[in-house]
């Protein structure tokens, strides 16, 4: 069973953290990537680098920035292969963003 772990970060979650603390958090992400259930994952650049596209009357309309102005910002994702939801939830709970004011949404992938 494949799941996406969608990571939403609280803006400014890293503010005020020391270099060491940031390194420790990065190390946690790297450890997670080494779990045998991990199929892949990516981290996104900050939201202010985003461009949003809509098509109206065949014309692309561009907006600077992300689509939603929310308290949490989509920051990256993992794709995992787990036996059941509990196993995927266990990984999700280890993602640092989840305890740093953000959240992780666990969604099963549609079967191809």
């Amino acid at each position, binding site marked *: *069973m494949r*799941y996406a772990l969608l990571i939403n970060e609280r803006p400014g979650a890293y503010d005020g953290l020391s270099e060491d603390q940031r390194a420790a958090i990065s190390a946690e992400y790297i450890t997670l990537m080494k779990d045998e259930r991990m199929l892949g994952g990516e981290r996104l650049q900050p939201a202010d680098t985003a461009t949003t596209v809509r098509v109206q009357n065949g014309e692309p309309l561009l907006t600077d920035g992300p689509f939603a102005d929310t308290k949490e910002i989509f920051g990256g994702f993992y794709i995992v292969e*787990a*036996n*059941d*939801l*509990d196993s995927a*939830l266990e990984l999700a709970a280890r993602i640092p963003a989840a305890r740093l004011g953000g959240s992780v949404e*666990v969604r*099963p992938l549609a079967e191809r």
Partner: protein
Amino acid sequence: MLEEVFRDQWARVFAALVSFLGDVDLAEEAAQEAFVIAAERWARDGLPDNPGAWLVVTGRNRAIDRLRRDRTRAEKTRLLDRPMPEEVTMEETSIPDERLELFFMCCHPALATEAQVALTLRALGGLSTPEIARAFLVNDETMKRRLSRARNKIRAAAIPFAIPREHLLPARLSAVLAVLYLVFNQGYGDGRADLAAEAIRLGRTLLDLMPDEPEAAALLALMLLHDSRRAARVRDGETILLHDQDRSLWNTAQLEEGRALLDRAVRSGASGAYTVQAAIADLQTEERIDWRAVAALYDRLRQLTGSAVVELNRAVAIAEVEGPRAALAIVDALHLDDYRYFHSTRAELLRRLGDTVAARAAYLGALDLATTEAERRFLSRRLAEL
């Protein structure tokens, strides 16, 4: 008679079919089909030696049949991942009891609480969808959608049919207990005796399956102790307060059983919220209630739950120990304006203090929020007596 057998067997049969088929929808269909066939055949030929095994085997064979005919559906289930099973024969009579797995699947915290409750009543209680809809005051269609959405999530997200691993167990068990207590309370407040009885039945099943879980024993004790006073709580359609209740109407067998279970829970180390509540209910069945001890237990409960409603109850005990003025000071500090017992408790305290005007306003506030006729009658009489 058949109905009783069905009720006893439903959860076991359904659990066995979920385990075998790996799909709740298929299991539901197969179980229903098996029960329909049984109703016909057993009425004619009498009960088989092992009704449970008969139902499971019949359900399995029906499901296999159906999957053979319908490959597209078969592809959607995990059955295809393993070799298609041969028809199962009646000789196979030892069917493992997998109701505990079923409890944990239905009460998985990834499901909304209302979905957990509905699933548990359907899967473990064997209640029909319309029965559950009536119990929770929604229409059949809404309940049908709620159940089907929940079953769909179980399948799509692979919510496990399993007993949680040790580190997850305490949290998952409290989710199961919370569902049972919700069902009980739905049956308690509005006098739906059938729901309270169902919650107790489920509580017994759970304790049978997990005899060493003190919190499961504590919850069953709590439900039994409260339920034992059911017959005395309403007289002539009016709510009767504890100290005015006719004790001869209390169900002494339930009371004794509840006490024994509480004892067992405490001796095996239970100290959670259900245990404290059961201990309070137990103290309140004494001829002379030790209100000081009741107040102390409510204090403990408040520490465990941080609940303002608990604090309101502590105030009721404090009124008996220190008088209504001390109790009113506690009550007035609470922000429970939408809670009917907040107003009725204030009203009783104000009445005892002789403040008729304020008491009247408080009784009227309680009357506004009352949900049952028995409560309204009680409050109206109190108002008239002011």
